[in-house]
């Protein structure tokens, strides 16, 4: 017989061995040499945490009580794995594509990253898992007690045992589960230790089976004969329970947080699923192969003892200490591996969906991207692991008895199965909404907790009274007889009620509510995951990813800079001759470099497209779109500015050209005006000097000379008057003397003033007296001044052999235009813009009089009168249009 101390020593050694394996695996994985870790067999073995101590020991107990029924909890998962192509493949693909970290994260991501939903699923998972943890602690303690006090199986062993076990497991999980906040939430060390434990427990069970079949009995046929003779020879399970339990366990393998962790989160390669599809059912088959034989032999050999411990007590009864030790380690393995992964999965959920969000709310305003946040998340995870195990321990101590805990396994299954409608609905039905999922889960959770969990957990007197009588004495609310159903199978009743209500409310609320845009996008991503994502690369992406990264970096950063970057990184990693290993540090550095060129979100998406095998999430897409929009806005702003600059430059060029021309004109004018001023001044001076010096001039000559002086000074005065007039007009200080006047009268006056009517007038005026019969309200002197100027210009500049000027009046509605068109050669195009400027005179061969102010003055006058003066090109000769003000006619 093994001593208890010896057993403790062996347990400690075994755990130390697990530590060593986990540590080695972490080390190899970090070096990128853990090829065996990446094998489908390790993946399959890690799935074996489905078989906990409850099934390791309890399956035989169940078989001893109700025959073949124990098989249902193995057949359910088998069904799911046989159907991997339909469901698991999609689940794993989504998990990888969306970088899912837990089942709560999965549900929350599908329904628009809802924090509330994630917290709800987390609470559900914790409530559903805590009793299960208690069950594991109990089984370890119980198996210790078998060795401590052989024969007294139903008495609890040392209380300290459970505390020691819980603390040890917490330590192990913290060390290997929270080493880092990894990109992909994978834990190679843990997974390898779990795989080792899977082998130990299978070996233990098979060894006992072989011992029983060939050591105790004499072969398979003998076992079959013993079954016939046993109390469980007749299989009388009712069909509903058989189907119900199978479906329940099928749901559980999808929804249990720890199963989701190994199945989806720790999945390193999607193709491993194809192997697990047959290897995991095979594992389950081997686990259940000898259950019934052990039960039958136990019933026969050890009547009256606890059938839950036959696996352990049978070898002991036959003094097979070595075998018993192996079984003990198998049970120990089953319990520890379950606890480790469950604690890890729960801590991830608790930290991500409850603690960190609360922390962020408390410390609002701080930058969430600092390294500090990483530390908070890690600490949250560590505390969660300790907390979850403490909860399990407390539950175990509080519930106290084996009776209550024995049935907790299936109860826990049903609890976590409440997530199933939202999970399946989410990945197959785009119409599923967040409100529907939340309401469905909450309803199912509440019914399950009330009908199944509370009666199992309640110990206090108050609770008992409430449960026995129903709240407020309402009988149909009593958990024992929900809806007044008496004598029903409590598990099946609870299953139908909770899952039924859950599915109904989920569907109904999904149908009547409207999802947010984020939900709809995520829904499409989940349901059509195969359209959007490429199959994921292996976890050790290795050289292929580095190659792709280099190609991408070259495109963005340019060949030289990318090459230097990769060389430096490779040298820093100590692998100078090859490409750098795409580890998180390198990826972060590369992402930062790329972000400088293409924006942070785009860089992140590009790098992860290559290394993570993950599709770009909606949030990242939005960020990319944001950046793109910013860049587009920036570039369009630049474009606008450049267009504006071009326009300004053109305007400046035009202005410059005009200034140059004006400058030339002014220079020409200055020389002209100085000449104009000089000529009369010269004559005035010359003749006045003659008058002064020569006293002998006769009166006639004196009179002639005085006349010349007078005429020249008049000419000077006229020139100065013109300049003054223009200045007054330009500054708007002119006074208009408006009166009613006939257009024909004004034209007559102008014609007379220019002297063209007189004989010998060198230009013929052609008028249309009928059209001129218009009465105007205007300043007749000023209007006449304009007409005079136009007529005298025609006199001066018309270069035709027989010059003639046509004055026509055009009426167009309220508008009156008077056009002066001569038959000369007109004004050359390049001078048309300048003729209205001051001091402009046409470059003509004729010697022209005047200072070049006429048209400038006329134009100013017409502007003051409210009309206009324009040059009309293409009329044969020079043509000017005087537009009379509209009010001239109205006021008349």
């Amino acid at each position: 017989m093994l001593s208890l101390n010896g057993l403790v020593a062996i347990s400690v050694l075994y755990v130390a061995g697990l530590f060593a394996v986990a540590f080695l695996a972490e080390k190899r994985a970090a070096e990128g040499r853990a090829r065996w870790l990446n094998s489908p067999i390790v993946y399959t073995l890690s799935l074996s945490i489905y078989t906990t101590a409850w099934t390791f020991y309890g399956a035989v107990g169940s078989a001893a009580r109700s025959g073949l029924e124990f098989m249902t909890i193995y057949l359910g998962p088998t069904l799911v794995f046989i159907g991997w192509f339909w469901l698991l493949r999609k689940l794993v693909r989504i998990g990888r594509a969306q970088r899912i970290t837990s089942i709560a994260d999965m549900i929350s991501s599908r329904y628009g990253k809802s924090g509330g939903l994630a917290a709800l699923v987390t609470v559900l998972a914790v409530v559903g898992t805590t009793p299960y943890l208690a069950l594991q602690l109990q089984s370890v303690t119980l198996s210790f007690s078998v060795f401590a006090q052989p024969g007294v199986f139903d008495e609890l062993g040392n209380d300290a045992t459970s505390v020691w076990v819980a603390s040890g497991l917490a330590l192990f999980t913290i060390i290997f589960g929270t080493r880092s906040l990894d990109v992909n939430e994978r834990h190679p060390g843990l997974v390898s230790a779990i795989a080792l434990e899977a082998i130990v427990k299978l070996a233990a069970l098979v060894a006992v089976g072989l011992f029983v079949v060939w050591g105790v009995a004499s072969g398979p046929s003998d076992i079959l004969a013993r079954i016939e003779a046993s109390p469980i020879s007749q299989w009388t399970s009712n069909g509903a329970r058989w189907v119900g339990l199978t479906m329940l366990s099928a749901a559980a393998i999808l929804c249990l947080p720890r199963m989701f962790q190994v199945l989806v989160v720790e999945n390193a390669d999607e193709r491993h699923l194809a192997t697990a599809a047959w290897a995991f059912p095979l594992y389950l088959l081997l686990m259940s192969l000898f259950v019934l034989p052990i039960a039958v032999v136990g019933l026969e050999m050890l009547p009256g003892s606890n059938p839950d411990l036959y696996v352990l007590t049978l070898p002991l009864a036959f003094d097979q200490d070595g075998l018993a030790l192996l079984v003990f380690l198998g049970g120990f393995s089953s319990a520890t591996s379950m606890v480790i992964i469950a604690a890890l999965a729960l801590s991830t959920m608790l930290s991500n969906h409850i603690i960190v969000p609360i922390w962020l709310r408390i410390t609002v305003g701080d930058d969430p991207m600092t390294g500090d946040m990483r530390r908070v998340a890690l600490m949250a995870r560590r505390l969660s692991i300790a907390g979850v195990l403490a909860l399990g321990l407390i539950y175990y101590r509080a519930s106290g008895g084996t009776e209550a805990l024995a049935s907790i396994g299936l109860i826990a299954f049903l609890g976590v199965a409440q997530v199933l409608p939202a999970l399946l609905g989410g990945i197959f039905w785009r119409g599923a909404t967040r409100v529907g999922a939340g309401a469905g889960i909450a309803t199912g959770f509440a019914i399950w907790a009330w009908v199944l969990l509370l009666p199992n957990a309640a110990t206090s007197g108050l609770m008992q009274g409430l449960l026995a009588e129903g709240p407020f004495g309402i009988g149909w609310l009593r958990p024992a007889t929900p809806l007044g159903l008496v004598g029903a199978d409590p598990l099946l009743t609870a299953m139908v009620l909770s899952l039924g209500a859950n599915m109904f409310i989920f569907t109904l609320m999904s149908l009547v509510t409207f999802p947010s845009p984020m939900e709809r996008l995520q829904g499409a991503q989940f349901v059509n995951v195969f359209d959007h994502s490429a199959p994921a690369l292996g976890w050790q992406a290795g050289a292929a990813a580095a190659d792709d990264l280099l190609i991408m970096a070259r495109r963005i950063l340019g060949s030289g800079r990318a090459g230097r970057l990769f060389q430096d990184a490779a040298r820093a990693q100590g692998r100078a001759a090859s490409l750098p290993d795409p580890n998180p540090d390198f990826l972060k550095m590369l992402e930062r470099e790329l972000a400088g060129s293409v924006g942070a979100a785009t860089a992140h998406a590009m790098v992860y497209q290559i290394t993570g095998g993950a599709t770009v999430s909606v949030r990242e897409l939005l960020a990319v779109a944001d950046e793109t929009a910013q860049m587009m806005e920036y570039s369009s702003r630049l474009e606008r500015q450049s267009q504006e600059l071009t326009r300004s430059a053109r305007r400046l060029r035009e202005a410059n050209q005009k200034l140059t021309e004006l400058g030339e004109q002014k220079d020409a004018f200055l020389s002209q005006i100085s000449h104009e001023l000089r000529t009369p001044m010269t004559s005035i001076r010359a003749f006045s000097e003659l008058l002064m010096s020569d006293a002998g001039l006769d009166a006639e000559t004196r009179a002639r000379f005085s006349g010349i002086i007078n005429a020249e000074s008049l000419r000077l005065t006229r020139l100065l008057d013109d300049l003054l007039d223009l200045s007054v007009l330009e500054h708007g200080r002119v006074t208009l003397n408006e009166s009613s006047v006939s257009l024909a009268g004004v034209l007559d006056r102008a014609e007379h003033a220019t002297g063209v009517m007189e004989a010998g007038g060198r230009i013929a005026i052609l008028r249309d007296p009928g059209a001129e019969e218009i009465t105007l309200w205007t300043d007749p002197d000023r209007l006449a001044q304009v007409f005079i100027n136009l007529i005298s210009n025609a006199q001066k500049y018309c270069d035709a052999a027989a010059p003639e000027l046509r004055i026509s009046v055009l009426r167009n509605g309220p508008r009156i235009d008077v056009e002066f068109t001569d038959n000369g050669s007109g004004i050359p195009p390049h001078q048309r813009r300048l003729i209205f400027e001051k001091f402009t005179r046409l470059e003509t061969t004729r010697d022209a009089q005047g200072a070049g102010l006429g048209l400038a003055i006329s134009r100013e006058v017409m502007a003051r009168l409210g009309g206009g003066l324009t040059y009309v090109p293409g009329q044969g000769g020079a043509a000017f249009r005087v537009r009379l003000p509209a009010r001239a006619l109205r006021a008349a």
Partner: protein
Amino acid sequence: MNRRLFLERRTYRRNRLQDAARLAPVLAGFLFFGPVFILTSETGVGGGTGGWLVYFLLIWAGLVVLSAALSAALGRAFPQDRAPGEAEGD
């Protein structure tokens, strides 16, 4: 046989292979649940535990073999990095 016909035939085989993979759980469900409907008669008398144990162990093993065969066939039909089902984009 020209090449084109060969390709079509292969695609057709692939699709039927995927159908088989999807239908496998239906077969499994039928085999798992069938017996209880037969045995849950009015008399309530079940069958012999031993015999049914052998039945379940045998179909279980048969399903493992079937699943392994299907996985291997799918792996061959969609070699390298391409996961099954990619071609038709289901």
